[in-house]
């Protein structure tokens, strides 16, 4: 299958390992990955902060970037960004009366999947042949859980990883407190939510806290790093891309 990667602006600029892992994983599974080079950002931060007028050109740019290439399905290693494409792009276009853009955005959204959705629903695989000899706990991010309804697909994938011990996270479905600009605008409340999330992560005794969103991991990881907790945050894609072959995780 020819799969278009929507790397997301955050992974592209700050967390490239998550995006490169997605490419390595999909290529290992025998698929061709393309990277539509015009892509930048889905505009979710603008929409969620109230700047829908500023988001409109980003929506148009995203649609054009993906329309300019030929591919079968698109994938992003982020429930949040896929949620934005699926639930916000057409809405923004319609707010400004651009019905044609809205329907193009809907067509694109219908072919855009979050990583665990792509693997389980489209490619029909739960065992991706990964090896990851660590104690891992998984935080199901809010937009994956409630906007996309990915359910336990990430856990199905993780359970099939060899060498790994998956430990259940208490109060897993509670938000980590990131929320984009919420973390700045309501810094104190955000920090209080993060403190509870970190407490639960530490309670598991895991070495690694994983999730399907770099943004949430940036928040949780930023807190765990400040605590000198010794717990690392690793994106789901990186775990799934790991194999026993030495150096494959480089």
């Amino acid at each position, binding site marked *: 299958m020819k799969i278009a990667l929507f790397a997301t602006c955050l992974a592209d600029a700050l967390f490239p390992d998550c995006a490169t892992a997605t490419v390595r994983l999909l290529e290992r599974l025998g698929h061709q990955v393309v990277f539509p080079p015009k892509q930048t950002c889905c505009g979710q931060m603008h929409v969620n*902060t109230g700047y829908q007028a500023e988001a409109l*050109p980003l929506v148009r740019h995203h649609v054009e970037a993906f329309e300019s290439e030929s591919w079968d399905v698109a994938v992003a290693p982020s429930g949040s960004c896929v949620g934005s494409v699926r639930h916000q792009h057409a809405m923004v276009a319609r707010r400004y009366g651009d019905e044609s853009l809205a329907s193009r955005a809907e067509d694109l959204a219908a072919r855009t999947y979050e990583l665990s959705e792509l693997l389980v629903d489209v490619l029909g695989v739960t065992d991706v042949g990964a090896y990851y000899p660590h104690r891992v706990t998984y935080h199901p991010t809010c937009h994956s859980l409630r906007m996309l309804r990915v359910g336990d697909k990430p856990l199905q994938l993780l359970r099939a990883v060899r060498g790994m011990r998956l430990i259940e996270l208490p109060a897993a479905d509670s938000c980590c407190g990131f929320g984009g600009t919420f973390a700045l605008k309501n810094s104190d409340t955000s920090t209080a939510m993060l403190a509870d999330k970190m407490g639960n992560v530490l309670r598991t005794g895991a070495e690694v806290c994983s999730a399907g969103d770099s943004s949430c991991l940036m928040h949780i990881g930023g807190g765990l790093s400040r605590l000198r907790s010794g717990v690392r945050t690793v994106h789901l894609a990186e775990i799934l891309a790991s194999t026993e072959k030495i150096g494959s995780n480089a």
Partner: protein
Amino acid sequence: MTTFLGSPTFHAGTGNIRGTESFPDAARKSLADTQLRANLGAATTTIRNKRIAAVAEVDDWEELRRAGSALKSQVMARLPELLVQFEENVTARGGTVHWARDSEEANRIITDLVRATGSDEVVKVKSMATQETGLNEYLEVNGIAAIETDLAELIVQLGHDKPSHILVPAIHRNRAEIREIFLKSMPDIDAGITDDPRALAMAARAHLRRKFLSARVAISGANFGVAETGTLAVVESEGNGRMCLTLPDTLITLMGVEKLVPAFTDLEVFMQLLPRSSTAERMNPYTSMWTGVHPGDGPQNFHVVLLDNGRTNVLADDVGRSALHCIRCSACLNVCPVYERAGGHAYGSVYPGPIGAILSPQLTGTTGHDDPNASLPYASTLCGACFDACPVRIDIPSILVHLRAEQVDSERHGLPGGQDLAMKAAGFVMGSEKRFAAAETASRIGRVLGGKKGRITSLPYPGSKWTSSRDLPSPPKETFRQWWARTHEDTE
């Protein structure tokens, strides 16, 4: 008979639905109160888990939610005619209907009605509408004592406190605090009373019983008003409401105009949705319904005051309108991670939590970004737990996003602030892959900030809002875009 609906003069809501400071400022104070954090965390976790279990027992829960949502949509679409029908039916059965545009008008109407009875004391059924209008304080100024009979409302009233939750207004108090409040405010209380819940409940019962037997006027809110019959309904857990609704001679009910349902049989849907969502009970203990006046049975004078207080403004907004579907179950509060930490008082309104974050600013309108209510739509991470819990499927996250856009758009004519400039700059950069790639390259200067440790621990304002409690990773040596170009050259 006239109605004010569709009137060209909009009335912004007034009363206890706008605080004095922004949500972040108010939340900062609540967050510092460790007792409050502990009380709230324990209470919301308990209610949350109970609700999940109660809802899981119903096979057709999702269908019920859709039915409740559809009924409420229908009510909003037909509100003017349903209100007229309701007024006709209440009047035909011996009741009197009054119309109030805002809190002030509602309070004045009710005060005049109480005065006409010659009484200077009223007993009250727990009511969000009267909390909204600040009726108790208004009556007090006018020499009328209003006694709350719901246990939690009584705790709030005797503690000279404000409610912090729709269903459990004293959720922020624990029993040791309640014991102290009772000892200070109940003259006949046993000085040796413990903080055993039963002992506290019995003390409240003795205190209230005297009031029930002497009061000649009662004031209630309403959970539902039935247009086709003129029936009103109140659901409650203690039976104190029923005492108020049946013992006094005069009953005055204040009801928001959105509380209508078209037909009596529609109650069937809501009587299933409400108790499981609010108290996690299969059926609520006391459901009182009354229709007009019946000689020799119950109150002989019955008045309904229909309250607008900004509701027609909300109705006029296609997206925000569904906030009026709310049946005040408070399920969204109990699942909200922001409410759980910041507490109800931080919202500055009698409607706290996710529903308050969309309802309060819509009712009052906002006057600019310094308006405390303008901060409420931002008091959410958009995690979506509220939408899942809402028994009438109010898409609170989408309305929050909509209200944020309205807020930003309303200020576009003024001088741009720091956030406006940052958002415009980010939009410009992200608007082109070349500019974005250039910005990525430039951002790698930020590696200096991270130093050898690879993490940024301190940034100037507004980045300090992040680094006050969280590290930030240094930008990587190579962006994904660059890695792709290096490793997939042939596919470019």
